[in-house]
């Protein structure tokens, strides 16, 4: 690790009063937070400003106002800092003409590593793509490309990892592997900031979360505490079945269900303050009662509605 490594638990990323606007559009509005070693999830619906914040943290974009430091240094116009930062952006920026290994080798060379064979082997091993490393990136599935991009972000053994929607396109098995890799890296004292718009992705990975909604930091801190607060908000789901009254009766007797109403066309509207319980109860009850589920859809369509109470409080 480099000399710029900071003591354990000191904040490695510091975002202070940061705003970013594009013309009259405010993408990020007066956001402040600190990120310490370990895994931190940056959570929020699409368009919440997560990627903009990550762009400012990685120096790809300037802040219109406020200050960002990583390992005590401003990331903007500071290429040397990238020796200590590994970044995986949301966009699949890869050179399709390279094999996976060549892509990681290319990244290693750009980082000035010499020799490169050992770190490249280690990085590819971490993502478990040894067997596919000699295939062209253009032939990879999306999940494989994501993993090889992660290998490229890890090849220089960075102290800080910034990953923007890293689990896009990955299958459940790959998610488990990713979870293990991140946990191991975090245990080694690295700072890992992972953005996602999917609650469950971050829930299993990060103990600390930063919750962004509409360009503002809605909440920050321990995941469980925030999750409990989120669960206090009513969540509505429309359920269409072949036996609406039977399904309604089953749901009414279930913990975590606040109310069930039947619409004119027989569709159920279920109100719950426990999203996780609701998600599990509906298919279980349908199976137990022999009811055929035709459609289950959240009426609060995006995370934004779930988070709205946090913003409005």
């Amino acid at each position, binding site marked *: 690790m480099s000399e710029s490594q900071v003591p354990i638990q000191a904040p490695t990323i510091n975002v202070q009063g940061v705003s970013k606007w594009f013309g009259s559009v405010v993408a990020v509005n007066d956001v402040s937070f600190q990120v310490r070693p370990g895994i931190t999830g940056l959570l929020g619906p699409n368009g919440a400003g997560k990627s903009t914040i990550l*762009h400012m943290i990685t*120096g790809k974009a300037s802040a219109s106002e406020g200050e960002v430091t990583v390992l005590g240094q401003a990331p903007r116009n500071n*290429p040397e800092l990238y020796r200590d930062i590994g970044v995986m952006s949301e966009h699949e920026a*890869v050179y399709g003409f390279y094999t996976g290994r060549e892509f990681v080798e290319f*990244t290693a060379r750009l980082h000035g590593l010499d020799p490169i064979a050992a770190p490249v082997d280690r990085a590819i091993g971490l993502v478990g793509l040894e067997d596919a490393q000699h295939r062209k990136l253009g032939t990879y599935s999306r999940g494989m490309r994501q993993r090889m991009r992660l290998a490229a972000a890890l090849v220089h053994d960075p102290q800080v990892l910034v990953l923007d929607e890293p689990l896009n396109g990955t299958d459940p098995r790959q998610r488990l592997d990713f979870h293990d890799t991140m946990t191991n890296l975090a245990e080694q004292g690295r700072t890992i900031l992972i953005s996602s718009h999917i609650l469950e992705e971050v829930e299993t990975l990060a103990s600390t979360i930063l919750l962004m909604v509409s360009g503002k930091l809605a909440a920050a801190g321990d995941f469980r505490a925030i999750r409990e607060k989120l669960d206090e908000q009513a969540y509505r789901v429309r359920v269409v079945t072949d036996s609406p009254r039977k399904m309604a009766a089953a749901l009414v007797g279930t913990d975590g269900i606040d109310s069930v109403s039947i619409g004119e066309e027989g569709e159920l509207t279920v109100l719950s303050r426990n999203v996780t319980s609701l998600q599990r109860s509906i298919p279980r009850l349908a199976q137990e009662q022999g009811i055929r589920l035709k459609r289950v859809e959240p009426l609060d369509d995006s995370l934004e509605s779930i988070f709205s109470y946090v913003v409005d409080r």
Partner: protein
Amino acid sequence: MGLAVIINLAAEGDAAFNEDFTNILLDGLLVAGILPIVTMALATSSFGNELEDKTLGFLALMPVARWRIVLPKVLASLVICGPLLVASGVVATLLGFDGEVRPAVAVAVALSAGVLAYAAIFTWLGLVTTRALPFALVYVLLWEGVISTFMSGVDYLSVRGYSLAIMSGLDEARFPALEDRVIELPAAIGGAAIVTVVFLLLGVRRLQRMDVP
């Protein structure tokens, strides 16, 4: 090249040939037309593809000085466009002047300086706007084509003017048609060098300051 032969056959004497060859082929076709257009097509897109497929964002996150990203782009345009343009200019000049080496060398140096200066300008333009090609076309047609032809002082700020002046300065005997309308050789070399360096630096500065997607 074919045009060089046609001009050679059609011209009635040395003086008439020199004037036609220089004004029509070297200036009108090569320096004012093919040189900027070919360089423009390549240099404006040297960052365009990487901006479009987001791979510039990947490069921007590497511990690499920004000039090490911009300079190879400019040099790549020189390496790709230069040989093509210089070869056609040199062969045409050799055909036109019965194999004389000196005017061919003058043309080669002038075209190389022009390619390098244009490459720096258009590479910077490709970083500034996603519509670099139309802007470059307007610049070439208006500034380098029309304005520099009719306003003598503009030659000091024109890549076309630098190229013609270098050509003339390196072989005054073979390009007398240019003698009265070009700037001095040192000013042309200095101007081309300054334009190249300034736009290289502007490109580096742009890459440092822009929000990379």
